[in-house]
């Protein structure tokens, strides 16, 4: 089923092409002349920026920082010479300081200047025209600095602090809430992108709890720009607040609802954190220590109703990256205590799952009751579940026994076997060449690989778009057929399903089913590439090799499934159903042996037609019917051997599809696992259906469930 990637690639090509075309019309010389004209009066800046978007050795940064302080002081001298005329433009001294040069001889100002600087620093008047509210704050508290006019913030997440009331110059930086000192404290910090913003808006930030007491010049701007620097007195952290931020506080549960157990204190790059759960567990919870979180995330959530609140307890979950591959921060605050604790969970969680976890935590803290995880019904057999991870192949599969107890993850070798290409009866491998072609009328080369040898499968089957191999070794392939120089949508272009038996190499591929191109289903046509619906992709083949399930994409993000009987070419199967009017099959059909197929289907409204009448249109709505059908039954009324449903459980909103796996128990009964009802950022729910029962086995951080791991790849 195609996804956004194909469209994205094309949109990217269009965008870049457009920018390139426009760029070609820009007269660089004329722009340069205009730039000179407009900014001729601009002083030649010698400003030194401490932070960048790369990692710079801390020592080098602090050489620069020291030098910057000196430049600031010289600037102050210049200000005093100008008699404090605020309107005057004070040109900094013509001193350029290079980041690359770390030698004291060149990165520090002359000694006499330093001496003057130190004597000047203790006279803050004139160096700070911005205001701090409150003017005195305990470490760990919040302060708001209001510039004395429009300033250009040097870096959005950096405040430079210069201690004023000592006889030695001490400069530190608050970087994204962390206290970074020149002696290497916080040396592993990643500096944020250094992008300024011109504004006179107040800036609020938390003074790190480890900030030494004293009076500081806190600068939003380059030190020396009094407009953006305020005088702030920091007192020692409140004892209760200090304990709150420095001592680990166990969360009510791990991600999966289990008890957290003891904390492990970890230190990375000078920063401390606490961890509950195994380091390699997807359910571990981390807490940031020694660092007050930014309360604005929680305050904003409280203001707009997104926060979870019970009595004095408040929480909000904020994605850090792109869930489920990124982590999620949960801010938790007891308003009476006044301390904001910062926890981190993921990757693997969707935003809604993290919000659900935060809600459980608040409930547990408010009621004093332990978090209870979901129940785990006893099934006919163990099962597997898929969770996202942040490294290739970006998902892992975990086993659970029939009682729902975790039984370990699939090994790397097992994952590799799952993802392996199909093999022919002689052991050779059948592969489609990479990369995936863009658009219709472009098939992939089809190879047969045997050791180091690689060859075309057959003269009549040199390329395809999807492939499968029956247990007997017959190749099932789909491909686009386009006459020379034609493009998809032109007369004669079509999609077809073919079979080829390598055991009879002289025999031509057999065409089983064709579908003509349909201009009505073209999604995109540009730059010589056509994306269109109506394509079907081989999804599964029955154990007896007779039936093929195909994914039928009718929308760039939506699909349904079709089944073809290879012994009855030329038509799609019309499977018996409990629905009075059959709607789409919205999940992958499962061939479970004994001539049975299990499908997940929507029922259509009367008069809406059947699934084969209009391939481009979705049919049916409402709850999903899971049906086990005897493919060998002659009488359709007797073909349904079992069906089940979960009231209120419809297809996933985003894809209009569902996850399905099924198996036949030793007693001949059918068990099915149905995953559906989700949407973007909203996790699907998973149920085991058996007889008349439906038991939920949804687990936080898992996105797919099946009896057979192969059903999850």
């Amino acid at each position, binding site marked *: 089923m195609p996804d956004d990637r194909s469209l994205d690639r094309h949109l990217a090509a269009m*965008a870049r*092409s457009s920018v390139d*075309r426009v*760029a070609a019309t820009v007269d*660089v010389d004329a722009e340069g002349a205009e730039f000179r004209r407009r900014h001729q009066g601009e002083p030649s800046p010698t400003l030194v920026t401490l932070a960048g978007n*790369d990692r710079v050795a801390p020592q080098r940064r602090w050489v620069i920082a020291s030098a910057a302080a000196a430049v600031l002081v010289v600037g102050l001298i210049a200000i005093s010479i100008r008699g404090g005329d605020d309107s005057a433009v004070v040109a900094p001294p013509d001193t350029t300081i290079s*980041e690359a040069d770390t030698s004291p001889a060149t990165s520090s100002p002359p000694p006499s200047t330093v001496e003057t600087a130190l004597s000047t620093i203790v006279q803050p008047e004139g160096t700070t025209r911005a205001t701090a509210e409150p003017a005195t704050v305990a470490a760990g508290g919040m302060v708001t600095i209001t510039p004395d006019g429009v300033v250009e913030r040097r870096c959005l997440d950096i405040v430079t602090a210069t201690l004023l009331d000592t006889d030695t110059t001490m400069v530190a930086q608050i970087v994204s809430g962390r206290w970074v000192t020149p002696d290497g404290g916080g040396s592993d910090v990643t500096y944020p992108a*250094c992008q300024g913003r011109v504004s006179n808006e107040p800036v609020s930030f938390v003074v790190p709890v480890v900030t030494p007491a004293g009076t500081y010049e806190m600068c939003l701007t380059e030190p020396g720009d009094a407009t953006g620097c305020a005088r702030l007195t920091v007192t020692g952290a409140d004892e209760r607040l200090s304990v709150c931020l420095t001592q680990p506080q166990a969360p009510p549960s791990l991600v999966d609802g289990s008890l957290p157990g003891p904390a492990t204190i970890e230190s990375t790059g000078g920063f401390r954190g606490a961890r509950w759960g195994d380091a390699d567990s997807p359910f571990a919870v981390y807490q940031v220590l020694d660092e007050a979180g930014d309360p604005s995330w929680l305050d904003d959530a409280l203001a707009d109703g997104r926060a979870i609140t019970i009595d004095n307890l408040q929480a909000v979950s904020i994605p850090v990256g*792109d869930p489920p591959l990124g982590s999620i921060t949960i801010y938790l605050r007891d308003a009476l205590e006044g301390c904001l604790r910062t926890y981190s969970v993921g990757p693997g969680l969707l935003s809604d799952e993290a919000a659900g976890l935060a809600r459980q935590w608040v409930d547990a803290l408010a009621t004093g009751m332990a978090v209870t995880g979901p129940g785990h019904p006893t099934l006919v057999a163990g099962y597997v579940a898929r969770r996202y991870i942040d490294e290739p192949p970006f998902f892992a599969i975990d086993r659970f026994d029939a009682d729902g107890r975790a039984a370990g993850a699939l090994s790397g070798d097992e994952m590799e076997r799952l993802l392996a290409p199909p093999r022919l009866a002689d052991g050779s491998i059948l592969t489609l060449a990479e990369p995936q072609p863009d658009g219709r009328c472009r098939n992939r080369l089809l190879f047969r690989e045997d050791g180091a040898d690689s060859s075309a499968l057959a003269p009549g089957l040199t390329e395809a778009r999807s492939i499968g191999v029956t247990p007997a070794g017959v190749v099932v392939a789909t491909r686009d057929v386009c006459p020379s120089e034609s493009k998809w949508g032109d007369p004669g272009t079509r999609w077809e399903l073919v079979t080829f038996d390598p055991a009879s190499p002289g025999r031509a591929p057999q065409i089983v089913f064709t579908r003509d191109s349909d201009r009505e289903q073209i999604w995109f*046509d540009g730059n010589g590439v056509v994306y269109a619906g109506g394509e079907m992709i081989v999804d599964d083949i029955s154990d007896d090799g007779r039936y093929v399930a195909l994914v039928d994409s009718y929308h760039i993000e939506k699909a349904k499934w079709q089944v073809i009987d290879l012994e009855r070419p030329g038509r799609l199967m019309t499977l018996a159903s409990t629905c009075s009017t059959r709607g789409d099959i919205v999940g992958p059909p499962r061939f479970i042996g004994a001539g049975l197929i299990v499908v997940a289907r929507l029922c259509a409204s009367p008069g809406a037609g059947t699934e084969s009448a209009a391939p481009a249109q979705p049919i049916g709505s409402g709850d999903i019917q899971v049906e086990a059908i005897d493919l060998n039954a002659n009488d359709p009324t007797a073909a349904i051997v079992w069906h089940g449903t979960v009231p209120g459980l419809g297809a996933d909103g985003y894809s209009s599809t569902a996850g399905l796996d099924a198996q036949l128990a030793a007693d001949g009964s059918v068990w099915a696992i149905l995953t559906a009802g989700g949407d973007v950022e909203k996790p699907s729910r998973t149920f085991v259906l058996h007889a008349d029962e439906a038991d939920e086995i949804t687990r936080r951080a898992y996105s797919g469930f099946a009896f057979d791991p192969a059903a999850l790849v």
Partner: protein
Amino acid sequence: MIVAETGFEDCYRQHVARLVALGETMAGDREVARDLAHEAFLRLHRHWESVAGYQDVGGWLARVMANLLIDHHRSRDAQRRAVERLARRPDVGSAGIEMEGDGWATLVAALPLRQRVIVTLHYAEDLSVVDIAEALEISPGTVKSALSKARDALRSRGDITDA
């Protein structure tokens, strides 16, 4: 003459055309794009000592351009300049995408400003969701939402073709 400083002029010549083009794609107006490109280069010059060492100065400029554009729409000064520009131009359309015949410009012209900026950074500059979120100081969720809406809007155009 600040442009003549070592390294900066080469950088200016290397990036100015694309930055103006990027701004024009986002703003739909060459003059606005030129204004903002000059402002972005002025900031680059102010921070030259540190930014010059970045691996992707063009990316830095694109981020600054995006924020300047968003700020520009709030800026009284920009309004004044816009009025002056309008007075100079004999025929001005509404928000006037000026790149007739350009498929991308036509496609994104109907998008709200922030979506236009986000899709341009994403598709033309290949910035990730997280990079865009950091650059514009918005949440990744907001970027994803904007991209999704923009894709839907682009898809909804039955005549989606390139020039």
